[in-house]
């Protein structure tokens, strides 16, 4: 995937071998912009039976150039489990090069979605028309959080208890500080604050962990398909709510902020979670807590750059996201005698 010039031939051979009966010729191959963590491309494929289709490729960047490190084997196994169960609307997995021997890097080949991302749709829609999209977005998130993780054979760890899980999640702030190339005083402050203000528990559910409008593809008929599952895990579903809030505050529009109470009411209605667990206060809490998953990955990349073991423009560029993270941490972890701020 790192050499676009050879990819049409390689991909055609790869798809033909996987199909077994038909021969594929790649008529067009182009890199996709929009994703930060993985190398993405789309290809137009003409099959020997006369059919033509588009596929999307999602592969690892060159060694030492990744902004974040995640495991394609785990992602592929998770996508396979979720699509097999039919439990979440997402593009189907077509094939996987698990060694990188055929496509130049570990690479998942997915169905192409005939539509656009929700981010692109929102960017092209007047703000006064965002209300329906807010409800659709909540419904998409709730559909993930309503899944019974015990009934799905997911290839990801299952925490033993909510208390232990939350403690481990909070401890990731301390781990991020310990692992970095310099002290970052925000992190242990936030960890101490979050430990002292734990919210009521919720059942552990599937958490997408990068829930944002750019990771929702909207088909022409309006159906939402979730993409980019590389950080998904079983955890507290409010992580996705908090993450969405902080992410879309930095890269808007923020559909939660336009009417926070209505957003949360719809979410409670769709998931069955109660108001004691899902409210503006817990939203503020998880707006601080949830960012650690992506924050820690970005900080890890910055640390690797400082130590000379990583390089790349994306790593340097996304360091600014750490500043946004610090701002959100302070907004969520309030000073004594002040009220929490759910809207970042």
């Amino acid at each position: 995937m790192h050499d676009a010039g050879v990819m049409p031939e390689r991909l055609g051979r790869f798809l033909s071998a996987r199909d077994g009966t038909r021969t594929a010729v790649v008529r067009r191959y182009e890199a996709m912009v929009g994703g930060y963590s993985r190398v993405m491309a789309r290809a137009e494929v003409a099959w020997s039976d006369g059919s033509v289709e588009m596929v999307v490729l999602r592969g690892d960047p060159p060694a030492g150039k990744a902004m974040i490190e995640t495991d394609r084997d785990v992602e592929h196994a998770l996508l396979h489990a979720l699509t097999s169960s039919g439990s979440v609307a997402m593009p189907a997995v077509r094939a996987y090069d698990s060694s990188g021997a055929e496509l130049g890097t570990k690479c998942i080949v997915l169905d192409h979605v005939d539509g656009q991302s929700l981010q692109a749709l929102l960017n092209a829609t007047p703000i006064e028309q965002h209300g329906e999209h807010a409800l659709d977005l909540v419904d998409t998130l709730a559909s993930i959080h309503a899944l019974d993780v015990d009934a799905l054979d997911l290839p990801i760890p299952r925490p033993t208890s909510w208390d232990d899980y939350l403690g481990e999640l909070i401890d990731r702030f301390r781990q991020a500080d310990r692992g970095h190339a310099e002290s970052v005083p925000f992190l242990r402050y936030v960890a101490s604050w979050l430990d002292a203000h734990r919210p009521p528990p919720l059942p552990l559910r599937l958490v997408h962990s990068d829930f944002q409008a750019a990771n929702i593809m909207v088909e022409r008929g309006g159906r939402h398909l979730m993409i980019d599952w590389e950080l998904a895990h079983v955890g507290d579903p409010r992580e996705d709510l908090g993450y969405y809030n902080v992410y879309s505050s930095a890269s808007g529009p923020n559909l939660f902020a336009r009417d926070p109470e209505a957003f949360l009411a719809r979410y409670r209605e769709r998931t069955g979670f109660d108001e004691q667990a899902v409210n503006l206060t817990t939203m503020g809490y998880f707006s601080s807590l949830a960012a650690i998953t992506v924050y820690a990955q970005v900080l890890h990349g910055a640390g690797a750059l400082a130590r000379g073991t990583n390089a790349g423009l994306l790593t340097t560029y996304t360091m600014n996201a750490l500043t946004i993270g610090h701002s959100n941490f302070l907004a969520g972890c309030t000073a004594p005698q002040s009220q929490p701020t759910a809207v970042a």
Partner: protein
Amino acid sequence: MLARPTTEQILLDVRAELLSTIDAAVTEPAVKVAIQMMENVLRNCAERAAHEIAWMRDETAAMVEYAEQVSASPAGSAELRDALASFSAGRSDSLHLDDVTATYSLAGECLSTALEAVLAAGDDVLHVAGRRLLEQRLVHEQQIMGEWTMVGRA
């Protein structure tokens, strides 16, 4: 050495050339996104070059003063005394950037440990005072960041 134009001015000049000459000649979407990112990084670097040593020195002094205040209070802890001792043993007055960042990191460790001690002790006055240091640090980070959005995300 030639101090003027300053590093900030040179970086901003390179940034202007990148936008006016190189970006104008490029049509490939992925490369145009990379140019926007470079523009941002150059702006970040220019801001850092202009201020980072002064900011780190100022913050270092404030963080250590706060940590000493916490250490002398009932919230003081053995871990905080250790962090302050490590700062005293490892600090440097050198203005070379590597030395300033090393000293800054040791002071940051003092602040982290002091804030942990203050929250454990439930001392709201010292809590608020410690947050002010984090808020000041954030002001500097935001000045470096400037206007920033995730370019190319769609």
